[in-house]
Structures are given as C-alpha cells and as structure tokens.
C-alpha cells in the first residue's frame, strides 16, 4: 500500500497529528511548546521575512570556514603523522593531551582573544574539526595496503610521489568519511557557540525566540536546524557515493 521509502514517514506524521490534536484539545498556552500548526506558521513567516536565511547564512558560513581551516590542519598533520612514524611518536602525548579538551571549553579564552563574532566561532569550530580528521586520516594512511607501499618501493617512487600517487588516493575514501563526520561536528559546535554566547546565526536566533516567549518560532528554528543537518549529511553521503562508489562505504564508522 505505502511505498517502502515513505514508510519511515508514517511515525513522524502520526506523532505530529497526535500532538496537534492534543494541543487543541487542552487549548495549549505554553512558553516551551506550541502546536505543529503554529510551528508551521512561524516557519513560513521566518522563511518569507528572511530571518531564517540570514541566520542560516551566518551559521553555515562559520561552520564551513571552521571545517575547512580545521580540516586542512587535521589532514596535513594526519598525513604527516601517518607517513612519518618518528613524528607520530614525537607528537603522540601532545595530541592525546590536547584532543580531549571539549572545544566549547575554549570559549572563554577565544572570547578574550578574538571577541564576539565570526572569528571566535570559526576558531572554536576549527579546533573541534582538527581531531576527527587528524585521527582518521592518520589511521587511513597507516593502513594503506602494504603491498601498494612495496610497489612504490620497487618502482623507487620519490617520497612526494608516494604521498601524491599512492597514499592520498588510497586513503581518500576514508578521509572523506572523516570529513563527513567533521561536517556534522562543525554544525553542532557552531550552534552551540551561538546558543552559549555568540550573538549571530541560528543558535542566537533560537535563544532570541525563547527569550521573546515565542515557542512556535523557537521550535520552528529547531526543526530548521534539523533539516539543515539532515540535508548536509545527505548531500555529503551523495557526494561520497558519487566520488568513491561502494568502496567508500567500507570502513564507514557511521
């Protein structure tokens, strides 16, 4: 009766309907909840007056900038640590000591150093993105098929060519998985920083709605953040499958 791909929508639709019926039957007036119809109305309004658009732009710009900066640093160090065992041992303690610091704990320092705004947010996101990409790309490089490294030795490829022609292409599918993981983290950290302190983006907007006692708008933002997260992951999944085929799904931690 229901096509397979729509079956996953049955439960959310039923839950929304039940919520709507319940809200109307108790004549809901709340600071934290709103009936789905009110959320939908707030959603429509926020889209049409551009509030969603500017907040989304701020959040995604910070998230992507942080992802690119942190990703580049993580990738460079990950490959270097994977290729040079000596370097790996030299940095092991440092990496393991700095890595567990929750990125959000850097907020006070970042705030003093960089003030409110994009730079502080991007710096924290970048810090958060360095680690998954560093750790996973290091592992990907270390686990390149040893036979391929022997082929490289037998052909006497230069160190630069080994990295460029063997190691990076061999590790690329797993590096992309790391990138996907980091993209999710970037969005989480961006919204968290905005909710905690930074007066820009979706996080600040959701806080403003809450403090303005507009639960419908607050929940509309929540739904919208979910939609963005879903879209981001779906887009990267699509790119991954397109770029690497089924091979990419091997070693996928997700």
């Amino acid at each position, binding site marked *: 009766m229901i096509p397979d791909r729509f079956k996953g929508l049955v439960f959310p639709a039923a839950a929304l309907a039940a919520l709507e019926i319940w809200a109307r039957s108790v004549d809901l007036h709340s600071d934290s909840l709103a009936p789905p119809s009110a959320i939908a109305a707030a959603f429509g309004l926020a889209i049409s007056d551009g509030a969603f658009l500017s907040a989304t732009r701020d959040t995604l710009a910070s998230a992507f900038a942080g992802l690119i900066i942190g990703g580049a640093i993580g990738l460079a160090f990950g490959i270097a640590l994977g290729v040079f065992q000596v370097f790996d041992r030299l940095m092991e303690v440092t990496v393991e000591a700095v890595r567990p610091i929750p990125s959000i704990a850097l907020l006070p320092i970042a705030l003093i150093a960089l003030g409110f705004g994009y730079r502080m947010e991007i710096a924290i996101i970048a810090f958060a993105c360095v680690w998954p990409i560093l750790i996973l790309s290091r592992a990907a490089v270390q686990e390149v*098929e040893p*036979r*391929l490294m*022997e*082929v490289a*030795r*037998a*052909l*006497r*490829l230069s160190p630069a*060519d080994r990295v460029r*022609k*063997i190691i990076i*292409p*061999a590790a*690329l599918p797993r590096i992309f998985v790391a990138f996907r993981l980091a993209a999710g983290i970037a969005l989480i950290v961006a919204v968290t920083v905005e909710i905690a302190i930074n007066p820009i983006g979706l996080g600040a907007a959701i806080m403003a709605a809450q403090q303005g006692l507009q639960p419908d708008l607050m929940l509309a933002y929540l739904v919208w953040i979910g939609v963005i997260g879903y879209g981001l992951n779906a887009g990267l999944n699509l790119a991954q499958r397109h770029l690497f085929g089924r*091979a990419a799904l091997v070693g996928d931690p997700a």
Partner: protein
Amino acid sequence: MVALSLVVSREASASKSARPQIAFSNVALNLGGKAIVEDLSLTVRPGEFLCIIGASGCGKTTALRLAAGLYQPTSGSVEFDGQPMRTPRRDIAIVFQDYGKALLPWRTAAGNVSLALEANNVPVSERAPRIDALLKKVGLPNHAGKYPAEMSGGMQQRLQIARCLAQDPKALLMDEPFGALDAMTRQGLQDEVLSLVAAANMTVIFVTHDLEEAIYLGDRVIGLLPNPGRIGIELTIDLPRPRDQLTTRENPEFLRLRRELFDFIKASEA
C-alpha cells in the same frame, strides 16, 4: 682478420655471459631472531629462467625479496650486475602473487601501467603509445579504460605484468604469479610469459609451488629445504624450446624431472 674479430667477439660475449646477472653469496637472513634462509649461494645468468620451488615456509619468497632488494641480508651479499643490492632497482621488476592488492584500484588499466612509466620519468607525450603497446603485448588491448575491479584475475595479473614490463627491466622476479588462477588461465599465461621473456631476453626468477610449472618454464630449477631455507636440489632443465603444453609435458625427460622433484619435496617434508 675476420677470424680474429670473431674470436674476440666470442670471447667478449663469453666473458659477458660469465658474469652473473644475479649473485647470492652465502646469504643469510634473520627476521625477529629466526633464521629464515641460511648460506644461500646461487647465481643467475643473464637471460636465464630460474625457478625456485620448495615446501611452504622454506624461504622461496624470502629469496625472491632478497633478490629484489626488499630485504637486506643479515650476512652475505646479493649482487646485481656486479653491484651490491642496497635498495630495489627500477631495472628489476616484481610480479606479486596478490595482483588484487598490487594494482591501484583507483586507476584504470592504462593508469596502472602509467605508474611505472611515471616512475621512470618517461615524458607525458610518450606514455600513451607505450601504454597501448604494453597492453597489447599482454593481451589486454581493449581494456585500457577498465578498472582492476572490472577485470578477471587472469586479466589483473596480465595487467601487473604489463606494469612490470613498462619498467623495461633487465630482470623479472615473479612470486607465485599464477598460484591463484585456474588451470586453463595459468597455462595460457605460462606460454605468454615464456614468449615475452624470450623476446626481451630478460633474466627471470620464478617462485612457484607447482613442480610441473617450474620444469615447464625453467632453464634450471632450485629446490629449497625448510627451517632454515637452504638449497637442497638443483636441476638443469634441458627440454627443447619453444616449449609446448602437450609435447613438453609428455616428454620422458619432463616426467623424470617431475619424479625427481616430487621425491625431493616428499623427503623435505618428512
């Protein structure tokens, strides 16, 4: 004058062929405190086809890797063209058994052959015609755009051989190259390797556990004894060339050699 120059040139060629292409002198290798091979001395003449057989764990592959420069001997020396082997050399090509792991899965057949040309600094403009010629040589002329995953095992091994030939090697070291292939594919590839090697006058060390394959292909067969690996038998194969899958294998000398190697393996495992 003519007679003199003839003598001179014969002497020159004699002295040239007198120098072995590959020479092991009292080679021993310990890995992790365990003696893998011991007191291994052997020479391979330029253009010779040497097969190494032995029970599993006898150090066949180790001997090949020593010849390739992938291992350094613990004592003794390995020389190629009179020079000690310290690292792998581009004029020595290695065909690995696990072709599936030795090919770059993200490169097409042409791209995999190109890797060896890139390593040898062949100019870009010369690569395409050479790739075409090499793929044609190994019987893959219409598969240049295919990825290894789209090819059968036999085709992948042909591709690996093409990549090795792209190095323009003096010596080809083959580590059980046809061990994972079915019997028909294997016989076809045996004949192709023989003709490729004869055409390029390459020196070959061919490791196999298939005694008949060793006799069929080789000018000489060395059998190793295990724990630690050392030479246990050495047979010169005087079967006529070109060899033929039917007549060579029915030759009484072939059968006699097969019996001799079979007995050797049985005794070495006892």
